[in-house]
Every structure is written in structure tokens, then in C-alpha cells.
């Protein structure tokens, strides 16, 4: 068992030889200050960025003829509170983007560390239609503010919900206060406007 366990804690960097792809080289050329690190694990390419640069880099990835990531696949966040690991994250949260190019047939993952005491990141909702709801979901679940989002409201939870359920410090068995029925009725008036 000792052999297996020592194998299982191998770090990401050593697990596969790093061969930088054309996309990563391009981003390195265009925005050398933006990249914190890159890695390739199980054939998934990852770029770790400074959050300030997320808008220009996403624009570059979408529009540059060598990249053409015209499909926005997924957006989520990871909370590393209390996680002791060698994943080498620097801040509590990490916002994770997945992009896919149909014409070039490749994928990429972008990650932006976001500190706990300044929980915000520029919104990229102007670049793809799909981003709008994903950013709302991420805000709902983790409380990360997407600056410039036109409608940053809760999407899966209800408006009066307190806290952000996917944060690691939100207890599993926490109960929420009951809603006053009045609020609900006032909010939803049906029928013709008068």
C-alpha cells in the first residue's frame, strides 16, 4: 500500500512532460504578464491567469485565427478552503473556464485565482451568449462577483437565501429561515398590468 500511496501524491507537473501548445505560446507572446503558470494533466491543457487579464485573453482566444474558441463550454469555481494539497493554488477560490473550438478541434481550461477578501473578477458576458447564466450560477453558489454583469442575481437558489451553499464553510445541514408568505405574494402579482 505504501507504494501506491506514494504514487498517488505525485505532483501534476511531473505526471506528464510539459509540451506547450500553440495556443499557450500565443497567449504568452501577447500577454506575457498575465500568465501565472501552465500545465498539462491527462491531456487537459490549463492556463492559470491573473484575473485582471481575463477579458483581453478571452477575446484573443475567441477571435484569433489560431485559436477560434467559439464555444463557451463551462464556468465554475473551486473553493480550496481547508484543502491541503499540492495543487499549488495560491488563493482560496479559483474560477475555472472551459472553452472549445469547433473549427480547430481543441479545448483549453483557464483558471483565475480569486482571493477571499476581494471576491470579484471581470465579467466576460459580452463575449459569448452562454456566459450570462453560468456567471450567475457561480455567483449564487460561491458568492464571487462578476464585475459588469448586467443581472447578477441568484439563479438556482431563491432570492432570500442566506449564504453561498458551495463554499466549504457552509455547513451541510444548515437550515434557512422560513419565508414570509407576504413577500412572495407581493412580488408575484399576476395578470394585466394596471
Amino acid at each position, binding site marked *: *500500500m505504501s507504494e501506491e*500511496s506514494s*504514487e*498517488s*501524491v*505525485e505532483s*501534476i507537473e511531473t*505526471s506528464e512532460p510539459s509540451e506547450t501548445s500553440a495556443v499557450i505560446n500565443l497567449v504568452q507572446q501577447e500577454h506575457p504578464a498575465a500568465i501565472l503558470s501552465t500545465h498539462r*494533466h*491527462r491531456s*487537459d491543457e*490549463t492556463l492559470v491567469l491573473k484575473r*485582471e*487579464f481575463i*477579458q483581453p485573453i478571452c*477575446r484573443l482566444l475567441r*477571435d484569433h485565427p489560431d485559436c477560434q474558441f*467559439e464555444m*463557451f*463550454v*463551462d464556468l*465554475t469555481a*473551486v473553493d*480550496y478552503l481547508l*484543502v*491541503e*494539497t*499540492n*495543487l499549488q493554488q495560491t488563493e482560496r477560490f479559483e474560477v*475555472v473556464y*472551459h472553452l472549445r473550438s*469547433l473549427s480547430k*478541434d481543441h*479545448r483549453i481550461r483557464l483558471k483565475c485565482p480569486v482571493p477571499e477578501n476581494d471576491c*470579484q473578477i*471581470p465579467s466576460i*458576458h*459580452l*463575449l*459569448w*451568449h*452562454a456566459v*450570462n*447564466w*453560468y456567471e450567475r450560477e457561480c455567483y449564487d453558489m460561491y458568492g464571487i462577483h462578476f*464585475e459588469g454583469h*448586467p*443581472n447578477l442575481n*441568484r*439563479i*438556482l437558489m*431563491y432570492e432570500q437565501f442566506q449564504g453561498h451553499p*458551495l463554499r466549504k464553510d*457552509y455547513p*451541510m445541514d444548515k437550515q434557512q429561515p422560513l419565508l414570509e408568505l407576504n413577500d412572495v405574494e407581493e412580488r408575484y402579482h*399576476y*395578470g*394585466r*398590468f*394596471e
Partner: protein
Amino acid sequence: MSASELTTISAEELKPIHLPGAIIPAPPEESDTSIMRIEIGPAHPAMHGIVRLTTYLDGEQIVGMVPEIGYLHRGFEKESENSKWIQVIPYTDRLNYVSPVLNNIGYSMAVEKLFGVEIPRRAQFARVIMGEISRITDHLTCLAACAMEVGGFTFFLWFIKAREYLYELLEQVTGGRVTINWTRFGGNGTDFPDGFLKEVEVRLEKVREVIEEGDQLVTRNKIFIDRMKNIGVLSKDKAISYGFTGPLLRACGVPYDIRRADPHLVYDELDFEIPIGEVGDSYDRFLVRMEEMKQSISIIEQAIDKIPYGPVMTRERYLGYPDKKEVYGSIEGLIDHFKMVMEGHHPPAGEVYQPIEGGNGELGFYLVSDGSGDPVKCRVRPPCFNYVQAMPELALGHYVADIVAIFGSINMIGGELDR
């Protein structure tokens, strides 16, 4: 973060896409009574699952719509983060409950990718066969409900009958019809019972007949075409920007199928065609799904011809559960089993994203492991999240009665949408 630190670029520089977002008309004047707001759902028979569409009408024409989701949110991710890796498999059954096998396969493949192992070939073929059966049940359910909502009740009953043939097949292998919990990391929970593959062929023949009958009943039916044609059209570029995948994107004319684009399992050894539509309306989605079922049947038949004999579970230690014969017959097997059950799986630290072609589109699992045996993150990328987001755009300018024709054809599954 102060404003000066931010490298934001102006809106023009970003070359923004035309963004309708949630189309909410400006609050009408007091005297303006031309805009009416009605709530469709959450508990409406034409809403598959629970979703609310706040619809703004001018006369009977839709001028705005705000979908509201989350009524079926059960905290899949929170539950998963507080479980062991293997305990998440039953939860995945409950995501898309009309094609549970595909969810099982997607999650197991993601964990196997985290481990970096390949599963035995027989297990891969078995996953293809079961997955395609599941895809047919998904499409049958979607089309049946879609046709019923526009008035074709016979079609509904026939297709649900065909779905039942296939559910009974799933039951023979897994013991359950809907919540099946079949795959394991490194292979499948059970091998096929004796005579199963013959039975599959017999039943597929029956299903093919039902599809043929349904095709004759509905596809060229004037009433059906009038209800579906040119309803809910979305252009190619917009569909890609909205993150459409699966049958909906193919109906818009983009031949993007993850079985071909990111080959997984043994799909690259099997021969099948990717049907695409022309316009991207509800009728095209119907036709694409009809054709895909036929392709799935052909995939299953090829897989049955090619499936090799062998184990269905990897021999990798501390990944696959040992065979029951070993557990009860040898001390090593018993110890392995005990350690697996008590300690769970320990995937090496890292993160993976594994997409598969679900019944409805790209089903992605993004997993993060810290090597401790508990998932740090277990994220599902549901395909229909994007479809419901695009509902305002699909419905704009149509009439109230068209909402069911559009909503039926995007095949929203509540369990997967709200997780």
C-alpha cells in the same frame, strides 16, 4: 481591486456579440395595457419537470420571456463533495433520469481519467451498447412528449411502449429501470446475463418497427409540420455562442458530435453517420433525433458483432473491486475488498474535464482531487442549462401555443438542469 488596476477593455473593443439576454420590456406606462404578463409553470403539464417562464405578450405574440429555474435543485455538488468518490455514482442516475446509463458512464470515465487507466475492451463495448440503448430511450421520451404536446397522443403511447422494451433490457443487466447505478471505476458492475445480446437484437428489431410506424404517422403529417416547421429557429453562430451541443446544435447544421470530435470508448471503431438539419427549427430537431435513433441501433448491432470475451473489470489494484470469488476464496481478495470498502478510492491529485455525448448534448464532468479520498469538486456541465437560457431568443415573435412546440423539442430535463 480598484478600477485602475483592472485591465478592462471598453465594450466596443471587446467586439460584443448582439446580446438579447433576458428580454424584459420596459415597464409599461400606466395607460398602456397592451403588454400582458403571464406565468407559464412552474407546475404546468407542458413544462417537463419544473421551470417557470414569465412570458410577456402583446396580444398573443411573445415579446419577452424570463425563464426561472432552480425548483428541482437538490445540491448534487454539495452532496458529492461530502461523499466518497464511489458514492457519487447513484447521484448521477438522478441527473438525466431518462438516460441514466450515460451519466454513469460519464462520471466513471472522468474518475478513470483522473486515475489515468484504461478499462478492459469488453467493458468498453458493454458501455457503448448500454449507452446507445439509453440514448434511444432518451430520444424516444423526448419525441413522444414533444408530439403529445402538439396533439399526437397515439405517437406518445407507441414510443413509450418502445421505451419499455428497452427499459426491460436495462433491467436485465442492472436490476433497475431508471436508477440503475451500473458502472464502477475501472469497469462495469455486472456483465451481460446469458443470451442478453440475442435478446437485444430481437428487441431492437421491435423498436425499429415502432420507430418506422411513428415515422409514417407523424413525420409527414400536415398538422404536425404546421406546428413544428419554422418554430424556434436559431442561427448556426448563435447556437454555438449559446453553447448548444448535441441534437440541437446538429439541427442547426453543425456536424459536432463528441463521439466523433473527442472519441471516447470504442466509438472510433464503429461506423455511424451524424445527421444534421438545415434550418434549426423544432421540426429539424425532431428529424435529427429520429435519425439518430436509427444510427444508434446500427451502432449497437455493430458493437454486438465486435464485442470480445474477457473481464469487465480492470485488474488494477485499489481501483476495481476484486471479484467476489476472490473475496470469499482468498485472504488477499478479502483484504483488498475490505480496504476498498472502508477507505474508498484515492485518485491522484489533479483535475480533469471529461465530456461525453449525453442524450441531450455535451455532458461534462469536471473533477478536482487532492489525493485524500474525498472529492474537492464534482461539477456537472448540464447540456440543457444553455437551452433554457436561449428560450427567450427561441420563442421571441412566436405565439403562446408555440411555446410547447419549442420547449418540447429542446428536451429540458429538470434533474439535470437544476442538479
